[in-house]
């Protein structure tokens, strides 16, 4: 048995992991959690908007000079971006491949329909897609500023205000924030289960944590467009 174990382990653990449903799901969980971590930080950063333009813009500048002189200007940012990109791609690809497999494993539906908890899975799927599209739009809006009405580099505060002063952009954001909430609500607990962190005793606590996290993120993110729309921030 031990020899079998060794030979089975050596060729490439990662390949075997990636090939198995459980392993691929773990990749999805880890990449998801990485993005989740980013979002928490990002949400907190965004809240600086309530302390005025200088605070937020300063923060944006600091992000770029972070790590100097060891790192050069914007290096930290690019490293983070690389990480995020990897996460989003791995996450998206595994999500896609697993979803394909899951649908194939249950080709014919039951004639007698019930509202099933597969609700969670379905929202995860389209919610994820919405998030993917949003991220693209969002980067064009506030990073590359391609679609931003204000488009002033180094001035995120003004850009954000500009962005949220037209209704369709607000709609996009609000929808995306709700998607984030739903996605994290199931995603966080799901990741714990996938990575084997859950057990009979922790199950409840983890579900609570997931709901809390989802709520905080959504509210935190939403506060910004709402503030702009209500004129609290301008």
């Amino acid at each position, binding site marked *: *048995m031990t020899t*079998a*174990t060794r030979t*089975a*382990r050596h060729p490439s*653990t990662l390949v*075997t*992991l990636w*090939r*198995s*449903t*459980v*392993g*691929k*799901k*773990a990749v999805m969980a880890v990449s998801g959690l990485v993005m989740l971590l980013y979002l928490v930080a990002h949400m907190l950063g965004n809240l600086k908007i309530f302390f005025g333009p200088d605070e937020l813009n300063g923060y944006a500048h600091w992000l770029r000079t972070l790590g100097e002189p060891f790192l050069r200007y914007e290096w930290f940012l690019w490293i983070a971006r690389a990480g995020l990109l990897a996460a989003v791609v791995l996450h998206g690809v595994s999500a896609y491949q*697993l979803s394909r*497999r*899951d*649908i*194939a*494993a*249950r*080709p*014919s*539906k*039951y*004639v*007698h*329909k*019930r509202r*099933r*908890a*597969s609700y*969670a*899975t379905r929202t*995860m799927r389209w919610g994820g897609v919405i998030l993917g599209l949003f991220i693209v739009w969002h980067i064009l809006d506030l990073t590359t500023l391609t679609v931003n009405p204000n488009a002033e580099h180094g001035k995120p505060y003004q850009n954000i205000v500009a962005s949220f002063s037209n209704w369709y952009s607000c709609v996009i954001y609000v929808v995306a924030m709700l998607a984030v909430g739903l996605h994290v609500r*199931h995603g966080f*607990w*799901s990741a*714990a*289960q*996938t*990575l*084997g*962190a*859950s*057990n*009979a005793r922790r*199950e409840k606590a983890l579900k609570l944590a997931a709901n809390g996290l989802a709520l905080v993120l959504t509210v935190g993110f939403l506060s910004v467009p709402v503030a702009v729309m209500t004129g609290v921030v301008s």
Partner: protein
Amino acid sequence: MNLTLRIWRQAGPDAPGSMTTYKVSGISPDMSFLEMLDTLNEELITRGDTPVAFDHDCREGICGACGMVINGQAHGPERTTTCQLHMRHFKDGDTIDIEPWRASAFPVVKDLVVDRSAFDRIIGSGGYITAPTGSAPDAHATPVPKEAADTAFEHAECIGCGACVAACPNGSAMLFTSAKVVHLNVLPQGAPERKSRVRNMVAAMDAEGFGGCTNTGECATACPKGIPLPSIAAMNREFLRSSLG
């Protein structure tokens, strides 16, 4: 009671199937669901129609043979096996939909009968402890802590009915597989094969065409033996540990 049954009829594995409607009358609330189907079949036979094929044997909720989706729920409204479900849980005049387990790893053989041999192959891939007859030490050579023994028992209760797969929106066999992995991996006797067991069983599960787990928890809700959802987390833990550690 008088009931209207809408039952999935399918002549053979490759034949097309469809829901067919039947009326049954004089059903006693004390009948088990299978006895209600017996009553229908007796009628069908005397009429010269082909009776509805369904798997069953012990009719005590322990062999795991009986399995059908009743009104969209595996094993029906109560948390038990179909043979232990009694008609008193239905009302006179009800319409009841009866369908086979649905999963591409469980192809329909006929009517409500499906092929669950994939489960046997999963067990064969590692769901055992290698102990050739005669090689065993005295039973008391290795004491087993009570809670390990209890956990093992709780998971060994799985009857291999397949309701977890039938209920899972992804036709996933995670609950079934984790039940056996946990049963054997918590025991000292199971330790030597601990790593290869989980890895081989997960590989077999994937090879059989079961879906992945999206942690929707439908399986544990449907399981007549109450195999708990965290067992899946435990198996994931065992799997990751065995591949990484």
